């Protein structure tokens, strides 16, 4: 509970500042005033005949951290993979409903899925750098999309590594294999790799589950800073982590959205009994 109360004040002040940035002055309900980045409407998803996501609707605010919580197998990962359409690489996956990104339905058939994935970056559960050099890892997306080359490429790679708080640790060995880095460094390299293509949204799929506490703290600090420029959605098992890093929490259970709201409200005063039982550790 100490963690929670400590994070409370910060979430509140952050929320407040975001609100003040957006035009309105007569703020009553600050949540409503923050711009929606992602708007999910009636999302349903099946893997062959298993109904994984059932009628999900929620909107994710711009420049905030939204945590997706819930017990194992409730569809958390599938949900965030629906935002960059990564589910469809699996055979037998079927989706209905809409996901709007800045007002554009990403499931529209006119959408270029590769451009979408460039806009919506993702960091996976286990650090998965390519077996290439550190530089080549960070430059991969830039090269794929032919965004820059030459000196500009080096600059962009440096910027991405700085943003991921990795530059100072690796700037003298960019040519070394990324597999020689520690787990936490590998994960930050994966974050840099995602940031390099200049996304707007970053999805984190339990980014710390394979890391030790020190590395976890670094990543969490990083996520806090990232929301200044990006919209962050993070799947987490870890209640303390959700309380520490997130502004909003969505609680999923068996593929349904049970409760969604500001983190402090949800942790202090959950409306749904299931949510309450989950956050007090009665099941999970």
């Amino acid at each position: 509970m100490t963690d929670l109360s400590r994070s409370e004040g910060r979430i509140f002040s952050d929320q407040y500042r975001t609100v003040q940035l957006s035009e309105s002055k007569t703020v009553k309900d600050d949540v409503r005033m923050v711009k929606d980045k992602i708007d999910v409407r009636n999302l349903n998803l099946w893997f062959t005949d298993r109904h994984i996501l059932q009628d999900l609707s929620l909107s994710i605010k711009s420049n905030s951290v939204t945590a997706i919580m819930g017990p194992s197998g409730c569809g958390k990962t599938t949900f965030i993979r629906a935002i960059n359409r990564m589910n469809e690489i699996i055979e037998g996956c079927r989706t209905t409903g809409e996901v709007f990104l800045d007002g554009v339905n990403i499931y529209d058939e006119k959408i270029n899925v590769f451009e979408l994935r460039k806009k919506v970056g993702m960091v996976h559960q286990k650090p998965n750098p390519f077996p290439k050099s550190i530089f080549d890892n960070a430059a991969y997306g830039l090269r794929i999309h032919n965004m820059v080359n030459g000196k500009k490429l080096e600059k962009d790679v440096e910027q991405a590594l700085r943003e991921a708080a990795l530059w100072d640790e690796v700037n003298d060995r960019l040519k070394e294999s990324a597999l020689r880095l520690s787990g936490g460094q590998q994960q930050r390299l994966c974050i840099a790799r995602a940031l390099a293509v200049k996304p707007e949204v970053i999805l984190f799929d339990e980014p710390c589950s394979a890391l030790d506490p020190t590395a976890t703290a670094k990543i969490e600090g990083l996520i806090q800073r990232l929301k200044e420029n990006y919209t962050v959605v993070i799947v987490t098992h870890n209640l303390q982590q959700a309380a520490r890093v997130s502004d909003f929490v969505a609680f999923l259970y068996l593929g349904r959205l049970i409760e969604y709201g500001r983190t402090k409200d949800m942790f202090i005063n959950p409306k749904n009994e299931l949510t309450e039982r989950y956050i007090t550790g009665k099941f999970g």
Partner: protein
Amino acid sequence: MLFSATSSILIVFFIIAFMLSEGWSAINLDFIFGLIWHPKTNEFGILPIIVSTVIVGVGAVFIALVIGIPCAIFLAEFAPNWVRNIIKPSVEMLVGVPSIVLGFFGLMLIVPFIRDNLGGRGECILAGWIILSIMTLPHVISISEDAIRAVPNSYREASLTLGATKWQTVRNITLPNAKSGILASLILGMGNAVGETMAVYMVIGNPNIPWIPTSILDSVRVLTSTIVMEYGYVAWGSQHQHALFAIGVVLFVLVAIINLMARYAIKRGMIER
């Protein structure tokens, strides 16, 4: 138990010892680098035969590469399950075709086709390439496909989530990571092609006096076919017989070197990963 465990070592050892004892006296520089193979005048130079063997082997593997690697990529990365379930077993069935049947097929179909359309005797290097590439193809496909599948899925996902297309992912991530396995499949295919006897023997012509080929429509002899065709009438204990054993030794060494190379390629791939 001990006997069973060591039996294969013993067998290899005895084969080597036997081959060397029979063939050693014929191995010298004139044998390896001599240009004329004419048993009647006791001239035993096998350079043209070695050259032909290498040409036939390399060409066959090249054809298997051109057809087999794209097939392996398709099976591992692009084919939906039901397509793979049809292609994979048929490719594997190709392994089970006895080489004499393939040779017969070559002799009845490919050789006349070449003779009628391209000229020459028809029994030539090209026919050997085609038959041998059919034989090595299934090995190349299945080993390469395994190598491509062994590339961790997390790499593919990482590439795709960055907005890479399927094909960019294959080219930049999957193939570079599978390259040692693919290389190993080609080298092993080469070993197969060089050691193969019956099918090749039936389609490459085997002229009485072997020469270094100048065209892919030339009839040639390879190491294996030379042994097969002359062993039947060789005089017991003659120099000719020793020379045939020496060819066996050369073949043995060649295939052993090729297999060691494949082993090295696989090992290096493991370390890289």
